[in-house]
């Protein structure tokens, strides 16, 4: 048990160099009874997406806007890349920080190219470099430069505008990006696509990103680290998505995650991370009697027919074979459905297998070769493992810390 604990805790991603450090940051709006942000201390590691999530009015936006001083803090310090910027020239500061807001705020009287060129111009780049940068960024956000360069924002769809908003925020190649509900005003399907695109982009550019949302699912999907905030921007828990789902620090976090934490957790692990089940397989062209032998030797009731390239071709059962004794194997039984690749999340696999024949998903590699099967049992097993790991990790604090937190006290 202790051994498992130590491996589990070291497996949790170790934070890198701190990029943004908020020290006792506070914001008291005039004439408000309570501060909107109350003495917040938070370290944001370089190259990670840190999500600020919490109920409406808890101070997420205020916190984020203090980082680029759109809102001036009333107390505390902001350290950016080792430098205290609490009193720095805000315009200079902002040119180094990409900024994306929910309403996007493209300049309607400027073309897409002019919109993207805003910060590079402020930074004094020469025209050639700016032009090249515009094209590069449009390509990065999957918009053909020739088509979109000279359009005006009103000639774009909502999703395209959001992409341009991201491109514009990246234009000065800032190390840090602030994003306030960037996908909040977009329909769910487009949002999903933009989120995936953004994650792919982030894997390349590795910016330090502070991302505000009130949607816990988005937080889990997008975040390397999540800060769950309570009223006054007080941190209820600041941890990786895995930890937050498996070991909520207190009732507030548990409530905020809501029911179905186990199901949400399925978004975090991938098919390649779990033990696949092995079902009986046979080669295309095998003698029916041999197939029956294979079926008899297994308790599954079905065998998967593979072709020469080991690609799944057919599901066959004993009754199928007996009914059509003389037909080739790939013309009896059922076509294979629910085929997933190893990088699919367990959630994807679960969605697939629920509607598929025999309630299984077939795992194939990138060239389509059969790897194994995900069935309900493998998913339940994965959930069980995650839970054990989480409990083990949660106990680490108990062994190391003298300060026993509330949750643990209740547990005794």
């Amino acid at each position, binding site marked *: 048990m202790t051994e498992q604990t130590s491996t589990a805790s070291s497996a949790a991603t170790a934070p890198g160099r701190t990029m943004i450090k908020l020290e006792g940051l506070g914001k008291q709006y005039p004439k408000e009874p309570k501060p909107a942000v109350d003495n917040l201390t938070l370290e944001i590691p370089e190259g990670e997406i840190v999500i600020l999530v919490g109920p409406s009015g808890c101070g997420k936006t205020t916190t984020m806007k203090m980082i*680029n001083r759109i809102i001036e803090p009333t107390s505390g310090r902001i350290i950016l890349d080792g430098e205290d910027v609490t009193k720095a020239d805000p315009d*200079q500061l902002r040119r180094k920080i990409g*900024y994306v*807001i929910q*309403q*996007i705020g493209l300049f309607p*009287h*400027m073309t897409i190219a002019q919109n993207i060129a*805003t910060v590079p111009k402020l930074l004094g780049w020469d025209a050639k470099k700016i032009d090249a940068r515009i094209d590069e960024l449009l390509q990065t956000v999957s918009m053909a430069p020739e088509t979109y360069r000279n359009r005006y924002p009103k000639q774009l769809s909502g999703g395209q505008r959001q992409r341009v908003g991201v491109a514009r925020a990246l234009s000065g190649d800032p190390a840090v990006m*602030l994003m306030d509900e960037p996908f909040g005003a977009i329909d769910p399907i487009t949002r999903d696509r933009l989120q995936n695109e953004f994650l792919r982009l982030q894997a390349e550019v590795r910016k330090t990103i502070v991302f505000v949302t009130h949607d816990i699912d988005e937080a889990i999907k997008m975040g390397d680290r999540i800060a769950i905030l309570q009223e006054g921007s007080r941190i209820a828990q600041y941890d990786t998505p895995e930890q937050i789902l498996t070991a909520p620090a207190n009732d507030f976090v548990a409530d905020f995650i809501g029911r179905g934490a186990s199901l949400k957790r399925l978004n975090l692990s991938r098919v390649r991370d779990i033990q696949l089940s092995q079902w009986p397989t046979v080669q295309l062209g095998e003698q029916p009697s041999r197939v029956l032998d294979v079926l008899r030797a297994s308790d599954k009731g079905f065998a998967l027919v593979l072709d020469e390239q080991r690609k799944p071709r057919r599901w066959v059962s004993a009754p199928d074979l007996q009914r059509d004794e003389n037909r080739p194997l790939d013309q009896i039984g059922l076509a294979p459905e629910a085929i997933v690749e190893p990088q699919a999340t367990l959630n994807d696999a679960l969605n697939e297998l629920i509607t598929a024949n025999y309630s299984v998903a077939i795992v194939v590699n990138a060239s389509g070769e059969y790897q194994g099967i995900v069935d309900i049992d493998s998913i339940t097993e994965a959930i069980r493992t995650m839970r054990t790991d989480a409990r083990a990790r949660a106990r680490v604090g108990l062994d190391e810390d003298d300060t026993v937190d509330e949750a643990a006290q209740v547990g005794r």
Partner: protein
Amino acid sequence: MTSSAAPGAPDLAAAPQAPIAPVRRERRSVGSYVFMPIFLALVCAGLYLYVSNQELDTIEQRALNAGNITAALLEHLRLTAISTVLVILIAIPLGVLLTRPFTGSYRGVLLTLANIGQAVPTIGLLALMGVGALSFIDIDIGVTAAIIALVAYAVLPVLRNTMVGLQQVDESILEAGRGMGIGKFGVLSRIELPLSVPIILAGVRTALVINVGTATLAAYINAGGLGRIIVAGLSTNRITVQITGALLTAVLALLIDYLAGIAEDVLRPKGL
């Protein structure tokens, strides 16, 4: 805080209610570009035919010869142009100032002052008359007085439209601008003003039309203009002269409105 006259225009604090010069959203058709000049040319031609078919007595001849009409027209245009330029120079910067956060407390007072010029036109007229009495000594005093009255009268639409124009700019666009590190002045000159151009121009156009019309009254204080012809017609009881003066004023007003409309179309930023 009362809701202001224009929908979506927040916080025209304590502004007296007066209509805001409307902005036409859609571009006009080719037909509407061509119609107005043709119509005005026809009116002028008709007027010319009518006048040249009349038996004119010496008084009428003196009032309606080409030299006199041209001079009156030029005086009129000068009054209009100078007063409109002054209106723009006063009202737009004032409108900018009054929409900055630090002028919040003066906003109501200044708008009320500006409103007096238009809402109580007789005051403007009285001032015009009073100072105008002096103008028989020196014609320049008359012109100056007329211009002051015209400016007082036409400042409000431009001021109001400038303020509404600046205030209707979407807050999120400004925030995006500031968030990228464009300075305060840059945000004003590169974002706020361009985005307010259509509404400000609509105000300028209204001011122009007001000035063309009101400049007719300048004749009463010996400051010239097309009003001179109408006044001459009235005082000598010559109906032809009256009609000519009135029609020319109307044609000029329509023509200037037409040209201002084209300017609005041309100057409106693309992409809006």
